[in-house]
């Protein structure tokens, strides 16, 4: 092997591990006792800033015939409002469109860092971020349900299905478990696991290329295959990124729909 590739391969540990998700501190630079500001934190604040600035700029002077930027912003809002909020919640969906759009755009941008060169990791691959979003959705649908049905009546409505009394003891625990325990957990884990696995896959194939280059002369040509897979998987990641942002938003809307549903 040539000297350069040995040096390159020596730098990249294989296989990747969970340690690769814990990035070095930025402020203080390279510090080992403070991890309050890492690349993850930076990407979070950049995402928030991008979203605020984008929507402020594009909606500053709205024209009747929209400019290109205004058209993009209106398309995103229109998509979430018509295809998610109104589609699932009916007329009341318009009230939820701003929150759902914010949620959709935020998750989309946060996920998108996974395939942006030099960023290459999504903050959502740390479970804290999806967990907080899931808690917001959880508190929101319970609050809306309590407001709509009136306090504890919501829990009666949510937990007691239309069924004969002797079968209720069997059904109520299932209802409780699936509505109030599984929902926030599955929301958070679905998004986190997708972003975590995506980052891990890209790491395996990128670092695997170096590992094979370094292994022996018969493996070296296959490192090209490994890197080609990385490119293919990046496109797959793009699909996953958009899909997961959509799924999270749709499920939040569907939980609100369940909370607003009347007896039928």
């Amino acid at each position: 092997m040539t000297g350069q590739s040995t040096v390159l391969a020596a730098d990249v540990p294989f296989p990747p591990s969970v340690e690769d998700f814990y990035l070095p501190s930025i402020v203080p630079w390279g510090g080992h006792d403070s991890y309050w500001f890492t690349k993850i934190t930076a990407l979070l604040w950049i995402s928030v800033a991008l979203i605020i600035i984008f929507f402020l700029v594009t909606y500053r002077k709205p024209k009747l015939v929209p400019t290109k930027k205004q058209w993009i912003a209106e398309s995103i809002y229109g998509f979430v409002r018509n295809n998610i909020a109104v589609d699932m919640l009916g007329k009341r969906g318009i009230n939820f469109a701003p929150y759902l759009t914010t949620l959709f755009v935020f998750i989309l941008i946060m996920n998108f860092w996974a395939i942006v060169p030099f960023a290459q990791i999504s903050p959502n691959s740390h479970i804290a971020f999806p967990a907080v979003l899931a808690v917001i959705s959880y508190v929101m649908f319970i609050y809306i349900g309590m407001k709509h049905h009136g306090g504890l009546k919501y829990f009666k409505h949510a937990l007691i299905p239309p069924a004969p009394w002797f079968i209720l003891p069997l059904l109520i625990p299932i209802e409780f478990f699936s509505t109030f325990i599984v929902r926030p957990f599955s929301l958070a884990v679905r998004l986190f696991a997708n972003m975590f696995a995506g980052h891990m896959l890209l790491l395996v194939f990128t670092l695997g290329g170096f590992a094979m280059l370094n292994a022996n002369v018969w493996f070296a040509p296959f490192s090209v295959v490994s890197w080609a897979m990385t490119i293919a998987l990046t496109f797959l990641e793009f699909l996953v990124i958009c899909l997961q942002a959509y799924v999270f938003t749709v499920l939040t809307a569907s939980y609100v729909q369940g909370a607003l549903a009347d007896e039928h």
Partner: protein
Amino acid sequence: MGMTAVAYLIAGMLVWGGIGLLVDHWVGTKGIFAGIGAVVGIGGGVYLIVRRLGA
């Protein structure tokens, strides 16, 4: 809607299978109640899907 249905099935199995497991632990059997619980639970899950999501 698909998600809700799957959630009911899995929740049914987990809840009643879990309760069965606790009963097993308490009585000292090796898994008979967990098995019965899982079957009963998935039955309840199917019933809930029919009542809540069916026409």
